[in-house]
């Protein structure tokens, strides 16, 4: 049925979105009506000033306010008005740079090491206990250790990204390399192919789809972790932005940032998926 109505799914998406916005609007606008609750404590009103006029109203903004905020950020993404007030573009840029830095470092370590582990059952057995123990550790648990030894919060965040992207790439590379079809290796053997040529022309392309799967899992995890890491280390980045806006109680900014985090995460995942498609092969 969906085959001859390609517009049906997008239409449903729009419908769901409208429904969601509608519910959101209704939920936030009802609270705006003055409620017959207890009167505002005069001392509290003095502390809050104009804010107190809204009474006990929640700070939860409606869709209109958020849309206006998003538009504001879209118009001026790179402003810089001091340490605690930078544009979303700058903040997300810091986060992307950190993620890519830690991620690429991890790839540089994990792919060659994974190759070695996959090629040699001995190395695999020797390193397996370490991998088993280190893999389930939450990357944020490394943070204090990183801060203490590196003494630089920015590099510590990169280190945390490095450590969390390492394991999926390492394990997948090792698995991909170890499970290269024996018959292709036999072809290489009967052709007296030298080890380096075999590694790059037979094993690497054969294992590439599995390696890419690991890389895709890693970038997803790295993007999840960067937000938390930046909340901890502070200074710059989208995670810090979210935490800072929480302190400012600017829910509109938080929601904007949440949407942006999702958008960038999706783009990163699609990028890796595109690379994976380009190097995958079909039998």
């Amino acid at each position, binding site marked *: 049925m969906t085959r001859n109505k390609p517009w049906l799914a997008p239409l449903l998406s729009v419908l769901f979105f409208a429904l969601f916005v509608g519910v959101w609007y209704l939920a936030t606008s009802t609270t705006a009506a003055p409620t017959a609750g207890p009167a505002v404590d005069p001392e509290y009103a003095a502390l809050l000033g104009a804010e107190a006029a809204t009474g006990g109203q929640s700070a939860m903004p409606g869709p209109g306010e958020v849309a206006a905020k998003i538009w504001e950020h879209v118009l001026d993404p790179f402003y810089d008005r001091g340490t605690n007030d930078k544009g979303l573009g700058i903040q997300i840029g810091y986060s992307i740079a950190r993620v890519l830095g830690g991620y690429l470092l991890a790839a540089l370590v994990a792919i060659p090491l994974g190759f070695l582990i996959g090629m040699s059952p001995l190395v695999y057995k020797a390193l397996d206990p370490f991998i088993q123990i280190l893999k389930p550790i939450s990357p944020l648990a490394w943070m204090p250790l990183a801060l203490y030894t590196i003494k630089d919060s920015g590099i510590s965040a990169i280190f945390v990204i490095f450590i969390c992207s390492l394991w999926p790439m390492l394990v997948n590379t090792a698995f991909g390399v170890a499970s290269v*079809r024996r*018959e*292709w290796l*036999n*072809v290489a*053997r*009967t*052709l*007296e*192919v030298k080890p380096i*040529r075999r590694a790059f*022309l*037979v094993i690497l*392309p*054969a294992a*590439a789809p599995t390696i890419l799967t690991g890389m895709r899992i890693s970038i997803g995890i790295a993007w999840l972790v960067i937000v938390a890491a930046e909340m901890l280390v502070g200074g710059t980045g989208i995670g810090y932005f979210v935490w800072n806006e929480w302190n400012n109680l600017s829910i509109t900014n938080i929601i904007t940032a949440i949407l942006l985090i999702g958008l960038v995460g999706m783009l990163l995942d699609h990028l890796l998926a595109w690379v994976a498609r380009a*190097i995958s*092969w*079909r*039998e």
Partner: protein
Amino acid sequence: MTQPFLKIEGLKRQFPQAGNPDPDPVFEDVHFGIERGQFVCVLGHSGCGKTTILNILAGLDEATAGHVIMDGREVRGPSLDRGVVFQSHALMPWLSALKNVEFAVRSRHPEWSREQVRAHAVKYLEMVHLGHAIDKKPAELSGGMKQRVGIARAFSIEPKMLLLDEPFGALDALTRGSIQSELIGIVEATKQTVFMITHDVDEAILLADRIVLMTNGPRAKIAEIVVNPMPRPRDRETLHQQPEFYPLRNHLVDFLVKRSRAFAPGADWDPKNPPLVYPGAPARAAA
């Protein structure tokens, strides 16, 4: 006494078994020779160790005892001197047909230029009538075409000997027939020495000058070596009209259905010199 081009002496292969230091060998006491330019088929049921023998000849497996001597040198490990066509074609799916063959040519001639490698690979792909499909990936080729690429790849390194491991087992009869004819054509043109495994009697009669008959495993042995009395090149369409065809075929089928199971060597049976048999041509045998 002159040595044959390829000599197999006292070959035996045991596969390790847990808790059994001396398991039954798959085959033992296997002796035979192949002359230069000869096409030899091994015929036997599954489990008699045909593929293991081929893998030992290819250098991909090691014998428990015995050795293989080719052209005066002992076979130790794989070599470009022996081209292998694998049962499952073993093409690399990320490379086009041309690149698969080029990979082999480049291994054989690392000093060649890109154009030389390409021209050589194309020549062998055209030999198996795949000139039109050289840029296709294996996934886009039919089973028969894949196996043709595998054959082109093995021939392209111009090995001293070609090893074929049931290359047509997975193909339909029509495709099999046309690739068999192509194989005959290339073998005639290149005077290639070939060792091939099959369990198809008609294929053996069509292709082989000598048919090595193996008994069932474990402890498989060479019962006898049948000499194909019909001269080369043999033609699939007229073969069955020749007087020698049915006696030969009956002899082989008879071996597969009865004697391979209950092979009882006579007093004069010597594993070092398996008897040569000339079914349908008693006059030749006497000569």
